[in-house]
């Protein structure tokens, strides 16, 4: 991988920020001394295992746990009969996360244990025992009498009148007022625009369910000390997790402590609290001992959640010169049987277009739940709309870069200015670095082959909002600073980044700042590692706390003896009349072996404006890693189900065909650095933005190579061979 940074004229270099800096916990991570949840051992700790539904849809007539209970070493067993905890984050009307008011009124509730069970892998019972083997043995002794119910796996079929109903209200998931309606957003008059348009295009695209596949499967260790619950769990957001646990268990927030020292990845799989946390806490309570629950890789794939699959039907209208006049999307998202996130699709906002109409129906299915995964509604929506627009450009005989420059968003929703705007520059710079004009086949499929080359491009803008978060800073007489931030390092490097921000703001070396993280009893509120926002929001709090403590030093001099100075900040900055966004453009080249169906990404060029870079080393890793994830989604990954039994067949790293190091192409990462005056020193979002573009970028390159539009992910070897037809 290579990297360049374009230092902006006027963007003055800083001392600490902007220098490639290794993680402050890198040595601990690579030498195996970092303490992950599964490494935490408490005296008298029990081990838990979960019994999961073997059926996609079934009513539990009865559960007999007596034999399991009688097994020596079994200390507690939970089922829906003795554990009625509502998992608030597991099903929210409209998929409106982080919203307690909506959770309160949500009628389609999800419990830690549900009856009926609605997907293969849904928890039916949990056992805590003296060791893992006894716990597993006990599961096999739990006798469950199921009444099997009809099930539906396909999201489009689920919305037909004859489909089995997963909820009494039907399979169209209600909105945040419990009204059974699709997600909708309209501007202008699409029907009128279509009737007068010079050209109208229609097509249909689909994307498959893909799992976050983060390295560390879910685990939890829970321990009660009187009425105080301590939960060790890998969560991307300790404050949110604590809040969720307190609400779900009906105890005050100060009676819950959430700890995560190290965790092995998130990618949206570990936000908020999970049923595993509730199950472990309830087992620990029932057993009167600490309990550790560990998921296997397969449980993690089928029992938590992944990205929602979609079907997307677009109607696009243009003027004779290719200027967009209307975009209509009729979409369906497969949510599994519970609404954990919205299920919407992003993409229309990429275009300047006076008439737009989005209608997305989030459909319940008897498959693994769909929810957050790095840019939850983005890669699948962008795959559809940016493939569609690539095809529109092709049919209009316009170069995709030219089409992008003609039609790209210039203001948010064509009305609100961005705090800065570099989208056009990202596209132009990327085309230049990639050598677009030379690499692209002017006529798709014209490379003689049998190995055909082609090039594709995509661009994006991604929310980069401001918001409330907190930080506490302490200075002692030795001149050592301790920074308390309620963050966890999900992989993006938050601990290091916030240490760097503090060092810069305090004008001291990073070594003088000791970062304390990952413990709700020690750290103040932080927003949570989701939405690519920790650096911006908690970083802003760090800058304010640093300013405060510097003022104290200026006023009173350095602390002496046993004195310490403390500063805290909880800023809640807002934007008025502007929208803040990160921008980016991706270009890639593929080689398609038309005889063997191989697709190789041979060159990948990215240009991003993520504001000022706090740590170029992490920034580069975020983009490159996300691109590889996106390529995996484009070419390989899927959750395949057996249609007759409703069983998932590809749960796990091997069978889901998650990309390996050998699948990673050379990725060129370039940043256009800017300071728009917001966020800590001008930092904007990075984490999610890299994955958003890759699926469409690869698909467009494949089209350019072979002249066949691949409309469904994953674009497998079988699909390539089928699309090319059988050569002689």
């Amino acid at each position, binding site marked *: 991988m290579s990297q360049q940074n374009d230092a902006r004229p006027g963007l003055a270099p800083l001392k600490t920020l902007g220098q490639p800096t290794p993680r402050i916990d890198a040595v601990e991570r690579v030498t195996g001394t970092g303490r992950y949840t599964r490494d935490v051992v408490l005296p008298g700790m029990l081990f838990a295992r979960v019994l999961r539904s073997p059926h996609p849809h079934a009513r539990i007539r009865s559960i007999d746990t007596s034999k399991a209970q009688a097994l020596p070493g079994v200390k507690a067993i939970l089922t829906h009969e003795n554990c009625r905890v509502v998992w608030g984050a597991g099903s929210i009307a409209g998929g409106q996360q982080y919203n307690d008011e909506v959770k309160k009124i949500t009628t389609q509730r999800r419990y830690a244990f549900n009856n009926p069970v609605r997907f293969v892998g849904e928890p039916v019972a949990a056992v805590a025992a003296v060791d893992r083997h006894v716990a597993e043995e006990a599961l096999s002794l739990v006798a469950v009498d199921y009444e099997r119910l009809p099930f539906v796996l396909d999201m489009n079929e689920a919305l037909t009148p004859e489909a089995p109903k997963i909820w009494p209200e039907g399979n169209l998931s209600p909105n945040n007022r419990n009204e059974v309606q699709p997600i909708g957003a309209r501007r202008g008059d699409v029907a009128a625009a279509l009737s007068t348009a010079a050209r109208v295009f229609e097509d249909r695209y689909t994307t498959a369910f893909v799992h976050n596949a983060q390295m560390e499967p879910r685990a939890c260790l829970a321990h009660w000390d009187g009425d105080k619950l301590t939960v060790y769990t890998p969560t991307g957001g300790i404050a949110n997790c604590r809040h969720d646990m307190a609400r779900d268990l009906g105890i005050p927030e100060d009676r819950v402590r959430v700890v995560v020292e190290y965790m092995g990845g998130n990618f949206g799989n570990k936000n908020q609290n999970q049923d595993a946390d509730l199950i472990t806490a309830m087992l620990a309570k029932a057993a009167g001992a600490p309990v550790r629950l560990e998921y296997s890789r397969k449980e993690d794939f089928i029992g938590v959640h992944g990205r929602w699959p979609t079907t997307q039907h677009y109607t696009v209208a243009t003027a004779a010169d290719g200027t967009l006049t209307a975009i209509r999307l009729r979409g369906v998202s497969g949510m599994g049987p519970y609404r954990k996130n919205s299920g919407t699709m992003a993409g229309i906002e990429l275009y300047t277009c006076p008439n737009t109409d989005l209608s997305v129906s989030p459909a319940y299915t008897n498959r693994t739940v769909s929810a957050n995964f790095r840019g939850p509604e983005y890669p699948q929506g962008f795959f559809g709309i940016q493939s569609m627009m690539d095809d529109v450009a092709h049919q209009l005989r316009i170069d995709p870069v030219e089409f992008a420059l003609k039609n790209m968003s210039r203001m948010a929703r064509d009305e609100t200015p961005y705090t800065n705007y570099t989208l056009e520059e990202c596209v132009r710079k990327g085309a230049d670095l990639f050598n677009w004009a030379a690499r692209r086949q002017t006529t798709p499929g014209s490379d003689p082959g049998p190995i055909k080359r082609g090039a594709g491009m995509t661009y994006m803008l991604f929310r980069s909002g401001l918001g409330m978060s907190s930080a506490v800073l302490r200075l002692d007489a030795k001149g050592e600073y301790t920074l308390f931030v309620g963050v966890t390092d999900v992989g993006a490097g938050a601990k290091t980044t916030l240490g760097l921000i503090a060092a810069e703001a305090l004008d001291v070396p990073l070594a003088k700042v000791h970062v304390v993280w990952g413990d709700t009893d020690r750290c103040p509120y932080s927003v949570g590692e989701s939405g690519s926002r920790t650096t911006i929001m908690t970083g802003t709090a760090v800058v304010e706390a640093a300013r405060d403590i510097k003022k104290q030093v200026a006023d009173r001099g350095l602390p002496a003896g046993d004195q310490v100075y403390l500063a805290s900040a909880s800023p809640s900055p807002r934007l008025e009349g502007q929208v803040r966004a990160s921008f980016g453009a991706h270009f890639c080249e593929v080689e398609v072996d038309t005889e063997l169906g191989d697709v190789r990404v041979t060159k990948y060029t990215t240009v991003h404006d993520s504001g000022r870079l706090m740590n170029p080393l992490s920034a580069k890793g975020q983009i490159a890693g996300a691109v590889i994830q996106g390529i995996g989604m484009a070419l390989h990954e899927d959750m*395949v189900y057996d249609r007759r039994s409703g069983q998932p*067949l590809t749960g796990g790293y091997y069978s889901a065909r998650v990309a390996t190091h050998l699948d990673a192409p050379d990725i060129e990462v370039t940043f256009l650095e800017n300071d728009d005056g917001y966020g800590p020193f001008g930092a904007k979002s990075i984490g999610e933005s890299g994955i958003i573009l890759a699926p469409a970028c690869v698909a467009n390159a494949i089209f350019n190579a072979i002249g066949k539009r691949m409309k469904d992910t994953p674009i497998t070897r079988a699909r390539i061979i089928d699309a090319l037809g059988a050569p002689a």
Partner: protein
Amino acid sequence: MKAFTNANARDARHAATLAREARTAGRRAAFAGGGSDLLALVKDRIVSPDVIVRLTSITGADRVEPSPSGLSIGGLITLDTLSRDQVVRGQYTVLAEAAAAVATPQIRNVGTLAGNVCQRPWCWYYRNGFPCYKAGGTQCFSVAGENEFHAIFGGGPSYIVHPSDTAPALMALGATFRITGPDGDRTRAAAEFFTLPRQNAATENVLAADEVLTAVQIPAARPGTRSTYRKLMDREAWTHAVVSAAVVLEMDQDVVRSARVVLGGVAPIPWRLPAVEQVLAGQQVTDAVLQKAGEVAVAGARPLSQNAYKVPLTRNLVRRTIRELAGRG
């Protein structure tokens, strides 16, 4: 996983005896070389042995030993060592390349040649606990189910594909397998070692429950022989072959004196293509010969509902692999 006891074998005969003793006592036994396949099956409760007979306690059964009649390779050699062996790489290239194509470095470091040849199918029904033929049941769920990766040759009643990379290579090299049981050794030509489901749907080869594959004998390479293994995967590592081809050509200048072509990933056993071999024998590898070779390669293919793509893929892979190997000169 279910609890089991471990039994260390002193030699192959002892291993077979330990397995028989367990079986006689009403206990299920399984052999473990590297254990990378077996332990995963045990953890997933696909198999539940009471006794695991550990073969890695045997010394000296992991060597490559040249002999006047060719090469003898101990079944316990790791795939990594095999892939790096200079003699194998030089004269039996197809086997070194096949060993190097297996899974991941971690698995090649512990996985053995015998284990790779004898591993159980990776059909997603079998691996997800469906009661199929391979699990002792009476149906193949792929027939009316998800069969994108299943057999286009030799299927019925089970449609698994043989997952081994080294097995097609060994068959293409004309290897003979040494099998050790509690009562002694026997040998089988590779072609007679693997069995079609119509003979016995529950197993993939002739090994009895208390027999182990202890060594393979490969005949000496004839002058002018060159060979290669080409594997198509759905990512660059850690998948089994969608289709693979092991090709051995004995060349006299630019004329093929004899050929062996064996496919992986398309049939319940390594699938030899005698018709292709006949097309090549005595011929220069011209476009017309390759055209014909591709056609006859798939003449007997019977795809299921979702794997018809394997037919052109097989045809094209056979052509491509032969052409490139013949052109290496």
